[in-house]
């Protein structure tokens, strides 16, 4: 038996040993294959944005984000599960990165010199899945299987089953250490690819982030960018009422990073923040000021929409507001 295989025994005393062996999709993706039409459309969008003026770029990215938000709402409403508030706060960050920044190939998710994105706040999987489907990593119609029995689209993103997912996330404070390892590894390999880790603000209470921040600063990982979805709310309360994070930018600077703060719903501001050249020898932290539930009036900045699921009427209202 090789690692990756699992064996469940059905044998009872006195019986011959009977085993069921099920091989999980090691390196495979549970049936999620590239959507070549969507890839072609995404490539055209990237090409357009590469030559577009700022006004056109802003309109294009806003349209992409609007589509993702609507799909997030309908996917969560359909599944009866999800983290709508955080999905809507992180949407513009993911849109900007996949729409205009990351050098990835949805037709070849394991391309060795790809840029890496890790969504450390893995509970916002629906925003990530929708963005990946928009790029063509898999067909968008598969989103309707989210959280359904045996779906590759788990409540939290799994590297085993979703192409484009670099590491399985869900428990908080895991993404940045992995991102540091990727950046160190790519540098060792002589690759120019970059690594972007998107974190929640609440998860900065996990100490593992600061272990990783210290290591990244010490190692001068200029290919590493952390983007903080700073919506100010965590599952149970405001971050400021739980564990004050401010002065947040100063904390990152003290760990040897450069830090910038931007409006996390302004695509061009995000674009500038993640593409400006790094100061010599410093990883960058982009603190993206966001609103949880952004775009849906009754969800915005409301702590209960961390993981509340909209009913049919609320979903209809949300989709109208996001039109």
């Amino acid at each position: 038996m090789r690692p990756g295989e699992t064996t469940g025994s059905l044998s009872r005393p006195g019986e011959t040993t009977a085993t069921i062996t099920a091989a999980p999709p090691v390196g495979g993706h549970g049936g999620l294959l590239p959507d070549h039409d969507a890839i072609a459309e995404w490539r055209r969008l990237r090409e357009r944005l590469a030559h577009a003026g700022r006004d056109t770029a802003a309109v294009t990215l806003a349209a992409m984000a609007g589509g993702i938000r609507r799909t997030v709402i309908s996917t969560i409403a359909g599944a009866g599960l999800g983290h709508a508030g955080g999905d809507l706060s992180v949407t513009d960050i993911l849109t900007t990165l996949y729409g205009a920044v990351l050098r990835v190939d949805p037709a070849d998710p394991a391309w060795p010199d790809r840029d890496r994105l890790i969504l450390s706040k893995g509970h916002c999987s629906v925003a990530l899945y929708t963005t990946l489907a928009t790029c063509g990593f898999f067909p968008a119609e598969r989103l309707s299987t989210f959280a359904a029995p045996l779906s590759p689209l788990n409540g939290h993103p799994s590297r085993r089953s979703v192409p484009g997912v670099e590491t399985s996330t869900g428990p908080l404070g895991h993404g940045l250490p992995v991102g540091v390892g990727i950046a160190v590894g790519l540098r060792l390999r002589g690759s120019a690819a970059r690594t972007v880790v998107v974190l929640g603000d609440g998860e900065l209470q996990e100490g593992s982030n600061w272990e990783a921040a210290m290591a990244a600063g010490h190692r001068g990982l200029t290919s590493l960018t952390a983007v903080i979805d700073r919506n100010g709310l965590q599952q149970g309360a405001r971050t400021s009422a739980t564990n004050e994070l401010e002065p947040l930018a100063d904390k990152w600077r003290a760990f040897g990073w450069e830090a910038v703060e931007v409006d996390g719903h302004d695509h061009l501001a995000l674009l500038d923040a993640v593409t400006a050249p790094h100061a010599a020898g410093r990883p960058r932290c982009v603190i993206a000021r966001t609103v949880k539930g952004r775009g849906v009036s009754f969800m915005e900045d409301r702590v209960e929409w961390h993981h509340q699921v909209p009913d049919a009427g609320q979903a209809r209202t949300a989709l109208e507001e996001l039109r």
Partner: protein
Amino acid sequence: MIVEELHDCRDAFADELVRLARADSRVVAVCNDSVGSSKLGAFAAEFPDRLVNVGIAEQDMVGIGAGLANAGLVPFVCGAATFLTARALEQIKADVAYSLANVKLCGMSPGLAYGALGPTHHSTEDLSWLRAIADLPVIVPADPAQTRAAIRWAAETDGPVFLRIGRFPVPDVSPPGAPAFTYGRALRLREGVDATIVATGTMVSRAMRAAALLEERGVQARVVNVATVSPLDRDEITAAARQTGAVVTAEEAVPTGGLGAAVAEVVLETRPVPMRLLGTRAFAPTGEPDFLLEHFGLTADGIARSVLEVLGLDHA
């Protein structure tokens, strides 16, 4: 009197890792300020860029290992077994095993090796914790030959693995001329019909000595060396239960979840026979490893006594 030559398996580990690194530029070492205790000095001297010392930060160390694997490297992540496994257990589960990252976790100086430094430094729960994680092979070499072979296998095989690299001095137990390590296979070191001693790591040589003591009492004990604790070689364990009718397990770890529990599961499911599970069943008192092993009955005498007990011969 023949004095056995004893070995610290970390030396074989360190030497083999340097050989692998010379042959494969993807091999890197990661540690938590443990260059000395992980015996990575020679590696650091020859491949300074390929040693990633993350400092005293085990969660970060395992996450960084997963990241290095993602970038196409083959990281050997080395730290004192208790800090590696206890402090970073969630990273081992989520970043390594669940993510199927090609990370080689190397738990150094496991069991009671830190002696009088005390239970905070003893790694006696690692086998239980890691055996509970799916898709994470748990490998415990018993001597330098097994250590070298297991590391070579790990480097050649894509996927996560935990290797328990012993520090407590052990004699050679691998029969010359045969493969020292085959993944997933337990190795029968001595034939016997009256009982089977199933041992792992440091306990293997003691199990062999116990079998010799038992022979003087007219008891023919089989000895099985389990180097792959997970997934366990079910066939060899079933054969032991069927053919010898009694099983004693011995490990330098808590048997509640480790080798003892693993063997008991198979015996219970296939051919229930009387068993004794030897291991550490409490936080250790103060003392050096030899003393502590004796304290827990993890000696040739102690193992032999348990075999007699399980056979009902202890008062004979």
